């Protein structure tokens, strides 16, 4: 039973290991000849302005709330995706109705301007 999860664990280990490896590989292998320019904060070639502790707009929070609703939709897509081929055309129609209802909501928030930035 638990052996079903070995691929997931393996993928997590590889993902974390790859991240750590890539972040440290240049540190281990690269030559170190620092000067003032190299040690300054890298900001895509621009001279950095202000601190890194910027306040993000409250708009992000609304987008986050809307994201969770579509996240819950995704949770219900998952058991459907596992079984829809066994249930047949009825399952596809049922999920179509489910998605269309949420799509109406998506059009509504788009028209209301909840996703606009000003």
């Amino acid at each position: 039973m638990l052996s079903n999860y070995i691929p997931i664990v393996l993928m997590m280990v590889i993902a974390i290991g790859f991240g750590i490896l890539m972040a440290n590989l240049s540190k281990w292998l690269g030559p170190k000849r620092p000067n003032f320019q190299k040690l300054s904060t890298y900001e895509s070639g621009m001279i950095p302005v202000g601190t890194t502790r910027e306040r993000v707009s409250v708009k992000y929070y609304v987008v986050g709330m809307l994201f969770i609703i579509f996240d819950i939709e995704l949770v219900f897509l998952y058991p459907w995706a596992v079984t829809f081929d066994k249930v047949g055309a009825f399952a596809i129609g049922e999920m179509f109705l489910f998605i269309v209802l949420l799509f109406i909501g998506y059009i509504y928030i788009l028209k209301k301007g909840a996703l606009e930035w000003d």
Partner: protein
Amino acid sequence: MSIFDILFYLFAAAIVLSAAFVSLSRNIVHAAFSLLFTFLGIAGVYVLLSADFIAVSQILIYVGGILVLIVFGVMLTNRVTNIDIRAAIRSRIPAFIICAGLLALLIAFITQAHWIRYDEEPWKKTPWGKNAVEQVTKPLQGSVREVIDQQGSQGTAAEIGKLLMSDYMLPFELLSIVLLVALIGAAMIARQEAVQKKRPLSPSLPTEVSQ
């Protein structure tokens, strides 16, 4: 001690330690990130309980959604990272009494609950009427472990999907309407904010502009 037990204690230790860090940390950003390990550990325990659909939901909704909202909430406010959040602790005695009562309640439930072990035969020990149990679990013989060895565990997601597509079709479609209502509610909140933001800049309120 089987690998099952080792994994359980590993997840349990991760949950308890990270949850303790959440409530004891002075830095609210560290507390929010520590909550990630609590949520992941709980997902691991769900996996050990063969509740794979709930584990996936836990990761998708709590780690992917709720935690992002919490981190956003922290980042929305300026310089909150340097505040000692423990300074706001008040009314220690009532809090202690409520938490102790909650703990006693949980212990009472845990000790009285009917727990099904992996190597037991749950369909023979259930407290409900024998006929009903035999009807529901007719094809099942032997312990949980033996049944899974014989039939193979397809996971709960496939079963839940099958039921949502057949017996529970109406609740499933009603769910999309519930989500629709939540979407409209979020849109209303967003619209109110837009209206409030415009008000101080309105020319009809010169006193506010001059200030």
